């Protein structure tokens, strides 16, 4: 594994005295696919938002590629590709217009931008549908377009916030393959999801988060050992439920 690409030190976020993220300390190295698991309200999205400088931390530090994204945003922000949980695309724009709009935000223009748009659409398998309006796409196609919008500027770190919600198995499989493909090319990935099998299939390291804290972190095998002393028959979901409990979580972040 390579250098540390992301490091958080005692990262904390409070909303009206309610601690949502509690002294979070994580280190992610270059080339990893880091999975962040947790029940609803665990603080995953808030953590992602603090890393991406969307939400200001109450306390603690974020170090992204050796820089503080709040203090040196211009130096570091173009190295991140952020794929939000929502379908952050405009339905009334065509596929290529969406990618052009969001890629241009990183300073690309002219032929370079055109090439980046086509490459991103090609990458997610939508190049032939580039002239269609996003509102006419299926759920899976919209998800793929959502990803394409974050790829155009060739980021070093891709942050996926539940990118496979509500799509068919084919599209999910396609997205997971593309994430692995990007990782092989050297892109570091942070991936949050509720789908255990997805996380287990692609992540090199997994952290389980609950009540704003990391309660376990390691490879899939290490987590299984932690819970059941090395019983290989146990699933990641069982590990998750053992660590976080079976009580329903009705939070909204």
């Amino acid at each position, binding site marked *: 594994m390579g250098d540390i690409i992301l490091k958080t030190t005692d990262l904390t976020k409070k909303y009206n005295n309610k601690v949502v993220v509690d002294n979070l300390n994580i280190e992610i190295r270059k080339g990893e696919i880091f999975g962040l698991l947790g029940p609803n309200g665990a603080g995953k999205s808030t953590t992602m*938002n603090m890393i*991406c*400088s*969307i*939400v*200001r*931390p*109450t*306390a603690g530090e974020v170090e992204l590629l050796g820089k503080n994204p709040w203090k040196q945003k*211009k130096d570091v*922000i*173009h190295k*991140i590709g*952020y794929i*939000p*949980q*929502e*379908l*952050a*695309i*405009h*339905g*009334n*724009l065509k596929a290529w*217009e969406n990618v*052009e*709009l*969001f890629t*241009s*935000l*990183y*300073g*690309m*223009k002219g032929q370079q*931008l055109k090439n980046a748009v086509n490459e991103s659409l090609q990458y997610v398998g939508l190049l032939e549908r580039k002239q269609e309006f996003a509102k006419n796409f299926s759920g899976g196609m919209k998800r793929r377009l959502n990803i394409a*919008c*974050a790829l155009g500027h060739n980021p070093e770190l891709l942050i996926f916030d539940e990118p496979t919600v509500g799509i068919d198995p084919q599209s999910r499989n396609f997205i997971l393959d593309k994430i692995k493909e990007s990782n092989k090319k050297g892109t570091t990935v942070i991936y949050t999801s509720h789908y255990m099998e997805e996380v287990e299939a692609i992540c090199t390291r997994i952290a389980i988060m609950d009540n704003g804290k990391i309660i376990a972190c390691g490879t899939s095998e290490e987590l299984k050992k932690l819970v059941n002393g090395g019983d290989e028959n146990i699933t990641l979901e069982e590990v998750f439920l053992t660590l976080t409990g079976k009580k329903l979580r009705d939070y909204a972040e």
Partner: protein
Amino acid sequence: MIRYLIKNNFKLMFRNTWSVVVMLLGPILVIAVLSSAFSELMKSYEGVDEFAVGYRIQEVAEDNLMIETVKVAGEEAGILFYEYPQGEIKDVMEKNELAGFVEFSEGTYVIYTSADYEVEGITLEYFMNKVMNVGVNASLQLQEQEKIVLPVEELEFMPAVDSKDYYGIAYIVYFCWCGMICATGVLSNEKKYGIVRRFQVSNISELQNYLGKFIPITLTVTVGMAIATTITVLLYDIHWGNSILSMLIVFMMILAGAALGMMLYNISDSLVITIIIQFTIVWFMGFFGGSFETYMFSSTSDTLKHLSPIYHSNRALVELSCMGESNYVASAVGYSLVITVVCSTIAILAGCIRKRGRA
């Protein structure tokens, strides 16, 4: 990057059928309804029968040619001038049932009107202003060397305008201030689908983000108002005055309306609150500024009228339409410019504060 932001936001605003239809059909329908509803009220201006006016020439006044011109033009306009060289003007007017009286002296004239002939008085003021301007211009052309100066007393001038022209202009003015409606689709989408977060995870500055919306709103409303104005001119035969000055005033109002809307949105972070507050502000400005009842007959106070930017724009445009000139052009443009600069600055600052976030 701003070029692509402007281009795509412009496309989004124009593809939002609902807002485009409102911006186009809104003024067309409202102008049709109000101009026909108030046509009787406005007719009192245009439907004045022939009436008699007295005049007197002071000894020092020598320009009899000008007075003859006034008499001939007056006859054509239905204003009959009769000379009364003697007596108290008030008594002469009462005795002879004159609607007005004009006292000519060297280089100037004074108009006397009667409360019993209010509309005729206004018509006389309008006529005198018009005919004396024409006369001065004609004299200037004839005698280029000799400069004629007619220091006309400052009159609270009431232009003669019909309801079609008045409401045809007033409602284009009114809708210019409501241009924020064009941005509703873009802004609600940005918020609803987390697109704002994509902007936050990018190199875009708050100024670029602001201009990326402000310029497309301005362009969309400008195109929309140009189409609506053309349609109303063709359908209702509305007369606009000096086209360059009129376009300047309208464009400045569009800028001010967009800046006001963006400022409210960046402060409130809510489209609903923005629309409610902006429309309330615009409604009050329109109420005092003559969008709902004509500013000529308005019962609101002069101070409140003058505080309303819509009053200045309305008055300037209406006067340009019926007189070809207006003293309100500078204040209309200046008011809009100040609103644009102040609101834009506050909008950008509010956006920066919001972006910086709360710890």
